[in-house]
């Protein structure tokens, strides 16, 4: 496994020598978007060095602190910085996976005794004191209905990230998405470790870079609460002096304000807000990407544009609270689900977003056997990886296809990710049900209905 991890790094180091390769990747719409492109960053740095406000024009849409960083950095160092960040991400993922493996080991299953008498007794018992039974703990290792899980190998999760071609191309293209992924993963890592201040700082940094990671604040504060063994939210005010979420929100807000303040001091004006977050929110740059937004807003009737912008943005964040409440026992799972939602429905998604959530999905490998469409999803994933660049070339370069070709494939990417999302949540729901309430249906091919 270590060999594979090293291989991932070696591939990056080998390919980084080919600068033309990096440049080509940076020009691919699937890999770099208007808000993450390295070429646009170079343009921003050039404008800034020439005393032209980079946020004035319509090319540069990235955060001022990143601009300052790339202004300072030596050009030769930049590709290695991205590789370093990727290694860091993999390392953090391994740490998170270690925590997750421990969590999985400690998971309790409601005991189930397959003999008929016992079952009847249990049912009688259940009807007598209906809800207290579910609280019953203590795993019987001999219980044959409890599925034997293959243990989660933490390093494997890191390897999934490092060897994923999607993360390799994102890293080589020097997409700013790597900063976003690194900040989110670091935030989750510190949340898992219960380091509230660090966690919120990195999440604030991630949101500062690309806005959408603000969704992770709630699950991360739940992770912090879980790890510190405190309540997520105070029941009655002042009853318990420390509860994770309000403090987290406060810290997050403070850090965000601080980061924006520093940016303002750096740039000397608030112009950057419109050119960074304004672009993410209002989508004025309609360059194609793997998401759903670009074509709908190219084709949108002008009078409905604002309405659909609102609808699309609301759908991204609509399930933040419901999902966090539903899976309050599994904040890390919520993080994974939010990863999928963001990668599917954010305004400028790229393949790097997919590469960022896949390791989190792999942390829940015990769910795979509950997923019905995994085969289809995997195949859709592979085929779209081939068809996206192919159809883009047909449209833009060969001229033998039109925009609909590429659009159709982005639709399939959307379908695949929505299927994955549904399957992933569905599997979790099913497993949780079988662990507790639905113990009687464990391990059987049985019809289960949502009611």
């Amino acid at each position, binding site marked *: 496994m270590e060999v594979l991890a090293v291989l991932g790094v070696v591939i990056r180091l080998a390919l980084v020598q080919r600068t033309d390769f990096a440049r080509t990747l940076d020009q691919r719409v699937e890999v770099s978007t208007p808000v993450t492109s390295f*070429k646009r960053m170079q343009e921003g740095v050039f404008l800034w060095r020439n005393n032209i406000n980079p946020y004035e024009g319509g090319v540069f849409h990235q955060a001022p602190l990143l601009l300052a960083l790339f202004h300072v950095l030596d050009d030769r160092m930049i590709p290695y910085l991205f590789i370093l960040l990727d290694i860091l991400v993999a390392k953090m993922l391994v740490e998170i996976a270690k925590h997750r493996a421990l969590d999985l080991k400690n998971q309790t299953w409601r005991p189930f005794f397959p003999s008929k008498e016992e079952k009847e007794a249990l049912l009688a018992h259940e009807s007598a004191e209906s809800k207290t039974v579910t609280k019953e703990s203590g795993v019987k290792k001999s219980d044959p209905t409890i599925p034997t899980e293959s243990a989660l190998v933490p390093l494997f999760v890191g390897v999934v990230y490092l060897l994923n071609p999607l993360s390799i191309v994102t890293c080589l293209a020097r997409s700013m998405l790597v900063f976003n992924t690194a900040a989110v993963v670091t935030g989750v890592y510190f949340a898992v470790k219960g380091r509230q201040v660090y966690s919120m700082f990195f999440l604030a940094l991630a949101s500062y870079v690309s806005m959408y990671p603000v969704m992770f604040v709630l699950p991360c504060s739940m992770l912090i609460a879980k790890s510190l063994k405190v309540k997520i939210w105070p029941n009655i005010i002042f009853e318990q002096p420390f509860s994770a979420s309000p403090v987290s929100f406060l810290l997050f807000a403070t850090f965000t304000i601080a980061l924006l303040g520093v940016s303002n001091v750096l740039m000397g004006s608030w112009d950057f807000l419109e050119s960074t977050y304004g672009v993410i929110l209002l989508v004025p740059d309609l360059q194609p990407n793997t998401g759903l937004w670009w074509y709908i807003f190219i084709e949108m009737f002008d009078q409905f544009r604002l309405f659909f912008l609102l609808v699309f943005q609301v759908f991204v964040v609509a399930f933040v609270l419901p999902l966090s409440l539903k899976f309050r026992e599994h904040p890390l799972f919520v993080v994974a689900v939010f990863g999928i939602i963001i990668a599917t429905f954010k305004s400028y998604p790229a393949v790097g977003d997919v590469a960022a959530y896949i390791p989190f999905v792999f942390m829940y490998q015990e769910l795979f056997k509950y997923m019905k469409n995994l085969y289809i999803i995997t195949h859709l994933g592979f085929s779209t990886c081939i068809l996206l660049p192919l159809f883009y070339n047909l449209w833009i370069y060969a001229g033998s296809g039109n925009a*609909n070709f590429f659009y159709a494939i982005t639709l399939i990417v959307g379908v695949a990710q929505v299927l994955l999302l549904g399957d992933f949540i569905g599997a979790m729901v099913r497993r949780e049900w079988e662990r507790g309430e639905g113990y009687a249906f464990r391990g059987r091919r049985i019809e289960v209905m*949502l009611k």
Partner: protein
Amino acid sequence: MRRLVAIIIAAWVSISASAAQSTQHETLHLHQRPSGRVTAHFAFAQSVAQSQAHALDDIARGFGIDEMALSFTQGTRCDSIATKVGCRPPGVVLWAWMRNNHSLSSVDTRWSALTNALAGTFCASLNFITPENSAEPQSSFTHSSVNSSLSSLRYASLPREITCTENLTPWSKLLPCSTKVNHLAHIKDRKMKPYCILGSKAGIASLFNAYAIYDADYHSMSVEVSRKCTSDTECTTEIRQDLVVALDPVRKGYQRNMDWSLQFLFGKEVAGSCPLNEIETNILVTLPKAEGFEFEGKVKPVYNDEKNAWVYSLELAKQFSMGVKYSDSKPDLSEKSKSTELIQIHRHLTGYGRERGGIKIRISNRDTKPRTVTLLEVLPWFIKLYMHTLQRTTYHITSQEVLSLSGEVVNQTLKYQPAIPRIRPSVIELTATLPGESITVFTFQFDRAFIKYTEHPPDANRGFDTGAAILTVHPASRTEKEYRLFSDVLLIALPTPDFSMPYNVITMSCTIVALYFGTVFNLIVKKLEGLDDSQLKKKWWMFWVKERSVLGKK
């Protein structure tokens, strides 16, 4: 230059003589090249004093204009030797110096008002000049007579604007001798030719035959207005109108020879000189050969060494026609259109596909001295420029050896205004010194923006025209004058969406959003429940499904 001085002197004389009179001047210069092509340059000048009325004077006064130039051009086969006013890029080019403090409104408001007023005057779509394609150049178009601290400059071009008779008619109405001859007849001469009375123009303007002019390889129609005030109340507006038409008698005639006449080229004759006072109507003819030809027509021209041309002076109300017949009328087609201009600019696109691209600008300097030039590029916002990719290579004109720049030659300043989508264009002003006998190539890259389907023109796959780059050649010495060169117009094709798709896209994309919402909502809200036997009863159509053992109700 000399002519300009003459006009100014004439204007001055006329003002001092009688302020109520305007001075006019019209010249037709027919310049034939060895290839047989005849460039006809109609030049009209007039000076409108304070008390007189003229549509352009009204505009200049109303919008606080110091100087203004407008040109309508079509065709690219312009002969820079034969054209004294220079070659202009296709479409419409307009620039104006406008006074900053004006009682009415700001410069930008007046600029849009000016474009609308000119649109009405010339019956052209100048109202498409908006802030989205207007620029404020800093170091191009500088002019000694305008105080740049008191006035602001606005520049815009519409490269796709097509010029035709509907523009020529209002343009020729602004000429000094535009009034119909029959109207003037009672003042000057009651014995006009009948066809004059029917409404054609007098003077050289009577040659304006739309069929001939718009059949030309190149035609450019321009107006230059400049307003000078000696005191607060005493202002004169000088108006220069030029029409350059490149005609080809070799192409036009059946004999494929160089012989031509006014009747042959324009299908018309000159209806005498302009019947107004102070008018000097001249026809100048420059021929490629010094001998071996003879002039047709009643009047014979006089050779003027100074002007290097044969000169006809027109008389009032006397039909005039002329022609040239060569003894050897075979055109010398081997003669390449070798330009004698010292500095030349050429621009083209690089790259392929509809996503990325680059622009390459090649400026050659044949002069032995280094020259300082300013390159002005105004590019629409949907061309997303990457100025960090700007590169310069300078090499020797004959040896093609790359020159390493040093000393004063190396100085190069870039003024760059990034475009704001849908609001303003990108403006690049690059001032550079070109070494003597060198070719300098500038390259930079751009991305073609993906724009909304409503922002595409009706024939979207043709692409967008982008205005010509303007090269301002700064004077090397005090005696020289600054002049401008225009590059080629670029046609940039943007990636197009499928224009028939709006409903389909909204439907399909929203289906995915609905799928997402429905799935997740169901999973969150609903609870799982195992089905009992009764619910799992085999349906009649499930004959292939095996009976399954089902646990009882939970």
